[in-house]
């Protein structure tokens, strides 16, 4: 059992959406579905292929890098219904190499203006809040890939 002061347990904001690594050496992944019949890839997971309606889908780990398809900044002072994070916030769609689009928050970038379309971004996991059991709830975001 962890002693007092040990790391708090981390839980995913939704286990069907974000898979946290079991070991520190592994990377977190978003989870999607791949159709065995037509090869289409979806995020989030689907029960049925939305292209060919086959129900033979495999759960897949999605690429951790993609490109910004769209981005905007929510700047209104009024908190959207149900929203639990800080204001303002950047969000948008990331296009993954598999073809799936991910609606996501962006981080590690300026609020002055939205990210440019086509910017290469990578997945990261951040603490979002705390659940009733006192665990850290972890969510996914994307951030621009640092140029070498």
């Amino acid at each position, binding site marked *: 059992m962890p002693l007092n002061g040990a790391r708090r347990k981390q839980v995913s904001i939704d286990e069907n959406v974000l898979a946290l690594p079991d070991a520190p050496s592994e990377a977190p992944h978003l989870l999607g579905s791949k159709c065995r019949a037509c090869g289409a890839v979806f995020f989030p997971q689907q029960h049925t292929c939305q292209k060919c309606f086959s129900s033979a889908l495999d759960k897949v780990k999605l690429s951790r890098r993609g490109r910004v398809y769209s981005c905007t900044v*929510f700047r209104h002072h009024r908190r959207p219904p149900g929203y639990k994070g800080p204001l303002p916030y950047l969000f948008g769609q990331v296009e993954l190499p598999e073809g799936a689009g991910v609606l996501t928050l962006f981080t590690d970038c300026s609020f002055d203006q939205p990210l440019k379309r086509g910017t290469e971004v990578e997945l990261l996991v951040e603490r*979002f809040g705390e659940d009733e059991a006192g665990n850290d709830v972890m969510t996914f975001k994307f951030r621009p890939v640092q140029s070498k």
Partner: protein
Amino acid sequence: MRDAVIIGVGMHKFGRYPDKGYADLAEVAIRNALNDAGVPWKDVQALYAGSALAGPTSANNICGRMGLSGIPVYNIEAYCASGGVALRLAAEAVATGLLDMAVAVGCEKQERGFIPVLNQPQWATVQGLEVMPCTGPALEAQVYMETYGVTREQLAKVSVKDRKNAALTPYSHYSSGDLTVEEVLNAPMICDPLTMYMMGPPSDGAAAAVVCSRRQARKYSSKTPVVIAAAVHGSDKFSPLEDVYHELRHRVSYQAYEKAGCGPEDLNFAQLHNPVASMEFICSENVGLCGPGEGARIFDEGRTLLSGDIPVCTDGGFLGRGNCPGASTLAYVAESVWQLRGEAGPRQIKDPKLGLICHGGYGHHAVGIILKK
């Protein structure tokens, strides 16, 4: 199949009514429509009531305001397309001969601020990824403006034009048409590129239409019956990112053209879904008024003004008349009927014969309705 026609329309003025409920609003719209049609409530054979937020049994409550006549009552939810779906079902029932006389109504009573989005995954809601009516349209606008070089000034001019139209419309949320481009651009930024005045105000309101066969129309009213030449409803399909929303609006409008035996070039006006300014351009492309990326150009040329060859959003649409989800499609129907009858007063366009209403419902629904004289 026989023609289904509209012989009466009515509205409750859009605006903010803290002391009224959705049934109060719907009742006024239905009574105005029945008066316009000369039809007593007891002759109505079915009620189709659309609302995004009113919830279970709301159609029964509305029916109760008019009198519990025992007729079939349908409670319809399709977000902003709710009223349009109500009209489509009423038109279908009359056209197939199932009914001779029906009422379609749409109404909404809202809290101030953003429109609640229900049935979204919790992880999206708590992270602010689905906020109606701004997050999806703002992302769409960002892509659209970059792709076609459309400017914020052009968006601001749409808001100015629609406020002017609304100022000529007695049922609209805004009664002043004085808004300037600078005021739109300097208004608080909600979600880039959309400022507060590039988004329609959340409104309470209601709109209704009386739908019947031609034979019934002659019995009740001497007014010109307006024919529902097409009333198409579709839901979303899986689309690649660049086609999301566009595919559905394009599909329902072209299905409507096919059903009505016309094309976009035959239209005398178009009432388009414009909860935010950029969507007025995008929707005008989706329905074929112009090619992709040309929405801003036909606007700049003045073609979509009341004086132009294809006026768009003659009552100001969402940006001027107000964003009242359940009522908005039928508000466009009422406005279109007044235009086709020549009863639109100071905003009357020149001798229209054919018009299109294309209206989405939170990306999941769209209706394409063609009305003709």
